[in-house]
């Protein structure tokens, strides 16, 4: 179960002017939901297009189930379901006709498609061109999952869906994961990623700036503590020690400090010398973590 079914290895695609993706590497294990976060134009879709075999890398490569995505697209596509970032349909009249065409191209029956239409409360018999963005997105979801693919790659799958449907989507992803499917999903909706993903990578300006387990967001090695001292003098002496302070509020004899787990014993030992009012950990949500990687320029190519 530990084997990576999706491997991206030093993938570089340089579009010039700093656009594209550079030395992107990550792996997704079987049965894992992997989130791929980044703002618009960070290189998420570029990376995903390489996985689908639509683009040829300048350097590095990517493979799915051990098959190179560029040289063996036909075999690779056999494992995949895919939703593109921008959805447009070919010249076909109704949604159902389109679903039927793709099903027959893949040689699968329509049972799963019917079930998914019902699940997402989609009436696919309408004219495709007149469908709203949300309805088009639902059809893409049906088409991506209807052939029970082992691996599903989703580029911003919930854009256009209402909150109720987004919640249904989260449940759907979790149930597919429980069936053993591997899912790679790009997104910039933190809540959705937090609820579904086991692991995630943050990409920025074409480079992976962080990879983490979702558990590490709550069990993050860089923890923030709020410490309040009984006396101002203690707060000030402590404030002069070698720590990474987020905030020093001497009026209230309070400091906020960031401590890495490897320094925690020194931190506790130092604190033991003072009279404390209280100490509490400040939990970071994914959104705060994400913003942290984005606001600070020096973090490029930063920690893992």
């Amino acid at each position, binding site marked *: 179960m530990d084997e990576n079914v999706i491997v991206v290895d030093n993938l570089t695609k340089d579009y010039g002017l700093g656009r594209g993706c550079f030395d992107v590497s990550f792996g997704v294990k079987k049965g894992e939901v992997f989130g791929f976060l980044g703002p618009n134009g960070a290189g998420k879709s570029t990376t995903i*297009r390489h996985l*689908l*075999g*639509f*683009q*040829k890398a300048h350097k590095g490569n990517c493979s799915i189930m051990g098959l190179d995505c560029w040289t063996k*697209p*036909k075999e690779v*596509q*056999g494992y*995949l*379901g*895919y939703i*593109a970032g*921008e*959805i*447009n*349909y*070919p*010249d*076909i009249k109704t949604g159902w006709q*389109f679903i039927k*065409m*793709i099903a*027959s*191209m*893949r040689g699968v029956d329509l049972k799963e498609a019917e079930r998914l239409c019902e699940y997402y409360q989609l009436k696919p018999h309408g004219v495709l061109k007149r469908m709203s963005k949300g309805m088009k997105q639902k059809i893409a979801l049906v*088409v*991506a999952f209807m052939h029970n693919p082992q691996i599903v790659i989703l580029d911003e799958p919930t854009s256009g869906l209402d909150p109720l449907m987004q919640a249904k989507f989260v449940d759907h992803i979790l149930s597919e994961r429980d069936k053993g499917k591997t899912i790679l999903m790009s997104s910039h909706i933190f809540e959705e990623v937090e609820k579904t993903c086991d692991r995630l990578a943050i990409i920025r300006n074409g480079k992976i700036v962080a990879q983490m387990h979702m558990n590490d967001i709550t069990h993050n090695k860089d923890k923030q503590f709020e410490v309040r001292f009984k006396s101002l003098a203690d707060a000030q002496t402590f404030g002069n020690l070698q720590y990474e302070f987020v905030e020093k509020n001497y009026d209230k004899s309070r400091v906020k400090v960031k401590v890495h787990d490897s320094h925690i014993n020194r931190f506790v030992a130092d604190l033991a010398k003072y009279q404390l009012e209280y100490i509490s950990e400040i939990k970071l949500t994914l959104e705060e973590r994400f913003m942290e990687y984005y606001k600070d320029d020096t973090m490029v190519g930063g920690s893992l």
Partner: protein
Amino acid sequence: MFSKHIIKQSISSNWKLWALLTGLLSAITVLMMFSFISISNNPYNGIDDKLDIVPILAQAIFMPTLSMGSILMVILAIIIGNKLVAREIDSGSMSFVLNTQTTRLQVLLSKALVYFLMLFLFSVIVGLIVVIMASTAANLDVDMSLLASIVSGFVIYSFAISGFCFASSCWFNKVSFSLLIGAGLPLIFMIIGTIAPVFVETNLDLSNFLKSITVTTLFDINGIVKGDSFAVQFIILAVIGIAMYSIGIIKFLKKDLPL
């Protein structure tokens, strides 16, 4: 090698335009044939011999320059050529098809087949109308072998022209670029083919130069009517067509798709 679904989908999204333009040219042909029949049946028309209609039809419908047939054929080739590939890439709709196990090559071969068949039928239907209507009239002289040469020449000429549209559609990811080249080249060929003879009477001798850079001169209808040989020109046109389709397909197999 081909995908029947792609063939079906390509036909269903393009047949209306094809039917419209083919119907238009057929209607023009039918009207011309009626007027030939009525002239030939009129005892006072002063024509003693049978009316030799193929050279007239060749001029009006099959001339590679500004004739009814070639104008409609070029419009058909430009619009459908652009729609078949470039538009599906630009809009992104081809991603669904490529996410089945259909390969890029299968997609393109199927589309090229539909494209070629549409242009083939466009010319052949007009030829058949002439043959069928002429068979009902006693006083028309239809040189069948000449008609066959001209219609097959027009098919090969359409194939060469459509090759430029198809290659351009495969080459560019943006519809605007695909149209610029895919429509631009055929139109330039037609315009040069039309103005080139004008320069014959000048001292500049531009005529030969212009003729050498356009494919329209390879389909020399006046020469064929006069009885000149045309096999070599037809082969060159076919080679140009095959080369353009191949260039388009090879480029498409190697390029990055923004899907």
